[in-house]
């Protein structure tokens, strides 16, 4: 028996989320006294997993998997789980991770819990804590499959180094075709993606119009942050829908979330609540966001934000 993780890569390089899943997998394997096995697909720097306690790495090299396919990746993970007698599989909560997980669960006839935020409180039966009601609550859920899949919520466990000396093996698998074909991928270049961002700077209606978004962008650039917006802002077309965060938009689980001119509607707060530290800048001291935030500035965004950006630039040049 073993614990299996899928360590996600982008263009051949492991993503940070791959190390977080490895860290979680290590702790889980320790709880169960089982080895931790990682499967990677077309990944060059698999050695980096040795920092996070992986005992064994199964490397899949297959040019036909260069382009992500949910059904084929799911087959890879399921076949490796079967070969390695893994009764617990840990996947990330990236767009691709959440796409694949239910497909893996059908192949393995496994139980699946998404949005898991902590190590299991019990292993037999397996009880996990997951977020639900869009971050307004948690549920303690018992998984009763013979095999079970945990979808780890992004940025919920963190990175925990634990050096190991993994055995690396290469495996060749036979995969069925995916009825869905990718034709092209369009990525926004030169910007930090909300899903990958440690810091997110978000703007609301208080910014008065799209022409003022340079305030958000300058602050975000200074912090190496992603930019986001509230629902009214995307509905009015000031910003693209891909930047809308909240209950019906993208979820945010960053380390720092800075909301500028966002009132803090319950749906917005639900979507960003998994962020660790929240800062609000708003001229209305009654804005609901002040109740949800850790730090707040009551003031005019048009004055506060440029000044904060300048001060942060000075701070960054001192500390680096």
């Amino acid at each position: 028996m073993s614990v299996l993780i899928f360590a996600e890569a982008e263009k051949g390089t492991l993503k940070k989320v791959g190390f977080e899943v490895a860290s979680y997998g290590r702790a889980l394997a320790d709880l169960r006294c089982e080895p931790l096995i990682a499967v990677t697909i077309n990944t060059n720097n698999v050695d980096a997993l040795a920092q996070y306690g992986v005992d064994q790495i199964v490397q899949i090299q297959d040019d036909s998997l260069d382009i992500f396919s949910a059904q084929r990746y799911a087959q890879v993970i399921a076949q490796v789980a079967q070969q390695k007698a893994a009764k617990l599989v840990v996947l990330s909560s990236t767009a691709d991770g959440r796409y694949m997980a239910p497909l893996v669960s059908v192949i393995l006839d496994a139980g699946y819990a998404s949005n898991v935020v902590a190590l299991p409180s019990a292993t037999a039966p397996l009880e996990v804590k997951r977020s639900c009601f869009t971050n307004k609550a948690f549920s303690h859920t018992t998984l009763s499959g013979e095999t079970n899949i945990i979808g780890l919520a992004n940025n919920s466990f963190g990175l925990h180094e634990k050096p190991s000396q993994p055995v690396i093996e290469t495996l060749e698998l036979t995969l069925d075709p995916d009825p869905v074909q990718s034709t092209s991928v369009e990525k926004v270049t030169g910007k930090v993606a909300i899903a990958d961002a440690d810091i997110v700077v978000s703007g609301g209606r208080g910014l008065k119009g799209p022409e003022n978004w340079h305030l958000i962008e300058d602050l975000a650039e200074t912090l190496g942050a992603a930019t986001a917006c509230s629902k009214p802002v995307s509905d009015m077309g000031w910003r693209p829908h891909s930047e809308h965060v909240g209950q019906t938009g993208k979820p945010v689980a960053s380390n720092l979330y800075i909301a500028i001119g966002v009132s803090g509607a319950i749906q917005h707060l639900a979507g960003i609540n998994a962020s660790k530290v929240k800062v609000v800048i708003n001229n209305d001291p009654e804005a609901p966001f002040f109740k949800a935030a850790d730090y707040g500035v009551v003031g005019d965004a048009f004055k506060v934000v440029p000044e904060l950006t300048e001060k942060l630039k000075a701070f960054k040049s001192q500390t680096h």
Partner: protein
Amino acid sequence: MKVLVCISNVPDTTSKINFVEGDTRFDTNGVQFIINPNDEFGLTRAIWLQQQQQAEVTVLTVGDASCEPILRKCLAIGAQKALRIDTTATDGFAVAQEIAAHCKETSYDLIITGRESIDYNGGMVGGILTGLLGVGFVTNCISLEIENGTATLAREIDGGKENLTAQLPLVIGAQKGLVEEDDLIIPNMRGIMQARQKPLNVLAAQKNTPKSQVSKFEKPQPKGPVKLVAEDQLDELINLLHNEAKVI
């Protein structure tokens, strides 16, 4: 073209979330139930397929009789038929098994689910249904065109989008972007009257095997009060973020 839209009955997005019976059950007292927003984006796209390409749109939910008002609303929006599979929705696996059993009897060209429900946030019914039916699947779907049995789609990925093609039959997980908020159809009086005449059939549940069970709910710990920093003391804010919160 036959389109099935799977609908989840969820608490309104502004609902206060509370639990009763020793935190084992969601408190529905005073809660307004709505069509799960992700499902409603999918339903609207399906109605466009009906208007433009003569698709026949059926809506389905797995749940008890308390789910019927939202099915009536779907009929008022424009769906031709509604189905309710009469069982308590225990977990995503069981729900997907029930829908799959129906889809094996009555075949559909396109099955639409929401990318996730806003209550349990499982995000699993569409994918499990796909696996059980052995068809194609695209979730986080933000664009869908169908021509001669071929679908051209886009899905949202982290930091961009991916364009895809697939032959029908197909399952998609809908979200905002597939249609916009402004496109959502508010039922008019004629639609509401017509909905009363449209079929809402109740189907018996099959044998399903849930693989998870909620033992207890928990609300997040109440957080402490906000630390306010004066607008002329921004150095202090930077100091707090650096030394106290350690996030910059």
